């Protein structure tokens, strides 16, 4: 893990206007540069609210009572406009159809939309669109209408139009939930590669096998609270099962083998690890 902190959340609490329940309860944690952090927890745990707070939509877009604060790259999100923050931290959410601007007729225009709004010169736009199109692998789709793309393709365009603002942190709120396995894989591949290239990733995900495989650290939430934040091996050792948090099948397998006295190592996180541990157990 990096020593360099890019996000610092300090005693963050939030309650939406008109609601009684606290959506976020006294959260504190930091995210390091280049880290891959996964947020897990049952539906209604406050994962989306946390994402909205990270990018500054809470409190500027959602009215409510906020305590504590979030700072991104040293800047307090409160008092900074969301548009300004977009060049530091980008958000991609679940429904791809809600992430296109509905004002453009081609993918390239869609990618450039954010730049148009901040008044970027045209040459700069063209250069960045070309660069981003390569990153998100939509080179062949640039002239297509975004509304005619498949879910996975639109989701990649959504990531692209976020990346075009050159954020160094990407927040993904269940961005593959509504996609089929193939589309989901396409999107996830890109996220993984971006992380390798140095972008910090904060991702909400329900696919525990994937979380176990990819996360540097896992943040567990329930009922608006932060239960734990640690490495996947530490999180998936069975402690949090009672909090509505699923375990990856491999970790569950490891735990069951330990119970039967066939395995004594750390939590299993990948298919490879599980197969090897299993083979070792029956080779005895």
């Amino acid at each position, binding site marked *: 893990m990096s020593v360099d902190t890019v996000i610092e959340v300090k005693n963050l609490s939030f309650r939406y206007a008109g609601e009684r329940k606290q959506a976020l309860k006294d959260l504190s944690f930091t995210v390091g540069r280049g880290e891959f952090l996964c947020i897990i927890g049952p539906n209604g745990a406050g994962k989306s609210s946390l994402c909205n707070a990270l990018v500054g939509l809470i409190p500027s877009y959602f009215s409510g009572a906020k305590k504590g604060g979030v700072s991104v790259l040293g800047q307090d999100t409160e008092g900074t406009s969301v548009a300004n923050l977009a060049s530091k931290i980008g958000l991609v959410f679940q429904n791809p159809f809600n992430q296109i*601007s509905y*004002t453009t007729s081609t993918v390239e225009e869609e990618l450039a939309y954010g730049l148009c709004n901040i008044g970027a010169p*045209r040459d700069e736009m063209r250069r960045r669109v070309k660069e981003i199109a390569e990153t998100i692998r939509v080179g062949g789709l640039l002239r297509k209408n975004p509304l005619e793309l498949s879910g996975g393709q639109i989701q990649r365009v959504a990531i692209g139009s976020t990346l075009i603002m050159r954020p160094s942190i990407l927040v993904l709120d269940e961005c593959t939930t509504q996609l089929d396995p193939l589309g989901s894989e396409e999107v996830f591949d890109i996220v993984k590669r971006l992380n390798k290239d140095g972008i910090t990733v904060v991702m909400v995900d329900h696919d525990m096998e994937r979380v176990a495989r990819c996360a540097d650290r896992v943040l567990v939430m329930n009922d608006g609270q932060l239960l734990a934040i640690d490495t996947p091996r530490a999180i998936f050792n069975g402690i949090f099962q009672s909090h509505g948090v699923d375990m990856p099948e491999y970790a569950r397998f490891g735990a069951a083998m330990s119970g039967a006295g066939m395995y004594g190592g750390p939590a299993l996180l990948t298919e490879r690890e599980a197969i090897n541990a299993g083979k070792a157990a029956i080779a005895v």
Partner: protein
Amino acid sequence: MSKQNKIKTKKTSSYIPLDSPIDRMHPMVKIYGVLCLGIGCAAFPFLWLSYAVVAFLFCVAWRAKLLGRFSKFIIAFAVPITCMLLIIQGLYSPKNVTVLADFGFARLGLEGVVYAFKTVGTLLVFLGGFYLMTTTTYPGKLVTAMQDAGLNSKAGYLVLASLNVVPQIQRRIAVIQEAQTARGVEVEGTMSTRFKAFLPIIGPTVMSSLVDVQERGMTLETRGFGVKDVRPTSFVALYLTPGEKAAKKVLVAFLIVCVLFAVFWALRPVLGLGV
């Protein structure tokens, strides 16, 4: 909204992509065209000018490869309204003095007939021009041109998003209709059965659309929509050719001449130039 009809097709814009000089023309010239020709004809006191401009519009339609559609549109509009106005104004206008024909139950008056043809002529110029502009201009290009000319970017968003959001809501309503019939909502049968189907289908459409509003607003916020003190730029570049610049000047000149003539004509008695 009393005149609103149902939309039969799934078309969401009247733009017909055809490669023609009119299609390639800068949208601003077309906007100038509709406004200058329309207002000029409306102001001009004689009715021949409108019909001359309509003839010119037919030439434009031919260049735009839209002669067939344009003729159809003009006839479909002109014939019924001319008939109706001849009855309403020709027979019943209080201004009627000169009687052209006497049908017994009513008299056809010259003033009313002239008024009817003047109205139809002006409307044909306006609506015909508008029709040609929208069928030959891609909506995105039109809005870009208007934004270049100083239109607020929020207004541009509203026009384009309205055009683009409709097909998506249409798809959604189709799914909702399926979902509700699967819950026992009958969409065929007696009038009261069909009436009862309206709410279960429009209800989820409205509700889910309102939920979408939230996320779409977030998207726009994060993408710098409506940032203060910044002049938005556009991805697609539009330039006026020298010919188009000249065309704009000619159109404005046409408008000025028409208006000046109209003022002159109206002031004739005052100026002592009576006929």
